[in-house]
């Protein structure tokens, strides 16, 4: 496991979260401690061990592709922060 060189501001941008300077320095400190703690995992030999993505691996869970009633449009729009004319309004994507 590499030495952590966590750059909180860079990662926060990847995660699309603005952070205050205070949060950046606090998280830098706290998360460096957490990463130092998880360093202990590197002493575990995992040669030939498969990764477990789930507790009970299940694959290809299919159902019949049948149309069924789903959420009404009005219900789906109810929680949108900005809706008009039966549509969700979004911030301009193309300049």
């Amino acid at each position: 496991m590499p030495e952590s060189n966590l750059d909180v501001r860079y990662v926060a941008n990847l995660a699309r979260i603005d952070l205050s300077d205070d949060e950046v320095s606090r998280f830098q400190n706290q998360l460096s401690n957490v990463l130092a703690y998880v360093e202990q995992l590197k002493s575990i030999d995992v040669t030939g061990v498969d990764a477990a993505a789930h507790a009970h691996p299940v694959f290809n869970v299919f159902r019949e592709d049948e149309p069924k009633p789903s959420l009404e449009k009005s219900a789906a729009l109810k929680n949108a922060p900005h809706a008009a004319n039966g549509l969700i309004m979004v911030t301009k994507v193309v300049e």
Partner: protein
Amino acid sequence: MEIFELSVSGLLDAYRNGSLSPVDAIDALEARINAVDPAVQAYLARDFSAAREAAAQADVSLPLGGVPVGIKDVINVIGEQCTAGSRILESYRAPYDATVIVKLRAAGAIPFGRLNMDEFAMGSSTENSAYQLTRNPWDLSRIPGGSSGGSAAAVAAQEAFATLGSDTGGSIRQPAALCGCVGLKPSYGRVSRYGLVAYASSLDQIGPFTKTTRDAALLLNAIAGKDPRDSTSLDRPVDDATALLGKDLTGLKLGIPKEYFVDGMDAQVREAVEVAIRQCESLGAELVEISLPHTECAVGVYYIVATAEASANLARFDGVRYGHRAADPKNLLDHYKRSREEGFGSEVKRRIILGTYVLSSGYYDAYYLHAQKVRTLMRKDFTDAFEKVDAIICPTSPDLAFRLGERTDDPLKMYLADIFTIAANLAGICGISVPCGFGVAEGTPRLPIGLQFLGKSFDEPRLLQIAHAYEQSTPWHKEFPTVPSGPA
């Protein structure tokens, strides 16, 4: 006995022999909540008139007919708030019922109230709620545990007959232990997650808080089973969880994992659990020393796997379809970044950043993939153990309830509160916490201690049999705190 003191089974008996009606139960609940919740602050919302209407129409011949069940504010109930303890969902109203709610209603139960929690179920003290501090009913200056702190405190304070919570790394069992009630985390895949706001999808599981193990079995019976809407719910027969209750422990082997009795745990917790282990032996169980060699990896693996999954799950909070949207964004990037900055609290941001980091280019193999491989080894620890024993007996939490504010500045110390519960989530097995005594802390004569049993995947009937046998041979489940009326 007051109505609010009844268990779910007691309530059902009283309904069926006609001595009580579901409306009486709602009335009693209302009086009790009004008396104690100003101090405990377990509920974020409740609607007595809607509950009374449902109670008036309840069919008491159904398995949970007319039983009000409190709901953690992370499970969707149509028309009700579902904040997940976060500002980002402050104005959200659930457009549908989660599958567990559909099932509770089918069993005759009345989903009632919204219970406080750590934001997005991230925390061990419920102090990460954006809304209020819930207090431990045994000492109002202490935390109720978390993340399902409201669900645990409500049952302990007898302002709920039973509640639902969710458990990703111990969020049912740890608060149950610290509040002195029963908390059951079913095996992964036993209960549908559809309609549960996702934190870490490979670990999350919904389960009940109750006053007794029998009640936990009754609630599990109602909510368990394959759901076509959750592909990770498994198509396995749902055995009656009450089937083995009342059978004794003769011939059963209980494993004592040496790694769960560590330096640094509270001496009173250790002693109470050791007494409980001897109690199980006197009930006929055979004790077997076992080893779960990768126990010390649990917290590290968890904080990589869970935060990685959280960073992906919480990407959906983009201020577009639901949730908070920042005012007057300059552009799309500003829209995302400010909506999330304003909507999420500190712990959620911290975990999203950690999760994003461990999945980022150059670190994925070293952190995430490596952690998943260690997770395989942890699963194998349990598979090996369950070849020798029927269940594992150990503490639920290394500590008694700590004081509000005591650990909020030290996330790592907070994370270590989950050291005995996390492994069950990583391995997908079932676990239950039951009260096993009291400890003394500064200024507090009685703080509950939890005993944890861990069982094989889908072996809930056996797990409940063992927990029930222990419970019925001890007085602990009959003890409830005296909660003062009025605000803390």
